[in-house]
């Protein structure tokens, strides 16, 4: 009997934080609480009100001894510092990384375009390759680069289109960090 009434109640829908991926009630234990809170306020205002009210915060604190509170706070600070430095590092990496768009002559008048360096901007290469294929209605695949790493190979001469597409779609990639070069067939042996 209870089952019939409860079957509509389940599966329970659980909200997961758009920043740290945990249920928002656990955001306080990660190093990105500030960002998590902003996200929740924008996306789930009612839940935000409940979790971040003065009352809720006081209640959380009263569950711990003074000593434990101090240790927890120290721990939280450490975590936040760690997260901040990781973020700074990622930003620096983005600022110095380059995306290379190479036009390669395959046959007379036939070209492929190779794109390297996207992984440094935290992009999923396979997914981007698929998006290229769809966007430009052409063959697009991921190939291993000798010396490690992967590049996307797109059929056709699409250097300029890809440049535009990348800088429009991914705001994380500054236009200055994208370079188009030409790779003539059979250059000096190398």
């Amino acid at each position: 009997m209870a089952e019939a009434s409860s079957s509509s109640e389940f599966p329970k829908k659980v909200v997961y934080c758009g920043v740290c991926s945990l249920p928002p009630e656990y955001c306080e234990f990660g190093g990105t609480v500030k960002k998590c809170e902003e996200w929740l306020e924008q996306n789930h205002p009612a839940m935000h009100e409940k979790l971040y009210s003065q009352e809720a915060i006081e209640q959380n604190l009263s569950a711990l001894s003074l000593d434990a509170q101090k240790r927890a706070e120290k721990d939280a600070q450490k975590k936040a510092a760690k997260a901040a430095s990781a973020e700074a590092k990622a930003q620096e990496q983005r600022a110095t990384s380059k995306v290379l768009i190479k036009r390669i002559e395959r046959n007379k008048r036939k070209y492929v375009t190779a794109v390297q360096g996207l992984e440094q901007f935290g992009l999923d290469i396979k997914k981007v390759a698929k998006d290229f294929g769809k966007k430009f209605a052409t063959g697009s695949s991921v190939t291993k680069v000798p010396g490690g790493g992967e590049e996307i190979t797109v059929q056709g001469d699409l250097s300029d289109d890809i440049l535009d597409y990348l800088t429009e779609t991914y705001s994380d990639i500054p236009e200055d960090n994208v370079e188009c070069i030409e790779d003539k067939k059979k250059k000096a042996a190398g």
Partner: protein
Amino acid sequence: MFKKDITPGPKTKVKSSAQRGIRQKVLDQYPQLEPYIDDIMPKKEQLDLVKLPDRIALYALSAVPLFFQHMDDPLLPHLTLIHRYPHCFTRLRIDRGAIRFVLSGASLMVPGLTSAGGRLPGNADDTEGRYGGKDGGDGGELDAGEVVVIEAEGKENACFVGVLKMGTGEMKRVRKGQALEGGHYLGDGLWQLNLA
């Protein structure tokens, strides 16, 4: 179990006969999932097996992880599955102070369960009987080796699932030591794993 980030191995399709076997195992281990099993593992949909490091197998339905298993050990539910059907699993609760340790991958220690904020079977403050096993005349006490889901004081959703290292009766007596082994916690490598 998943303290480090994990790189999943290749995905393979589970044969329909094997799929039936897994379904039965799930029901044997978690009989309370019975009313929902067709939603969780629809008979006609393809179950995938993803190999994870250290001989752990993960069963998933398209990109949704469901259960994982180390060799022939019991099947353990993924936390997102627990969040969807929390009442179908045997649960205990840790106090607030223990949460941050669990979420950083430390072993779950008995005092986190025996303190005022924790809940072992038969706790007087647990009037709805949410925590512990089905009472088999032993007050719902659980034995070592049983799979339990760990909820937390002041939180709605579970944060950990693992296997009891010590019976709950013994925990109440000794009040120290490691409570659970291995397992899966919020934010660990299994949680972060992207199957898409």
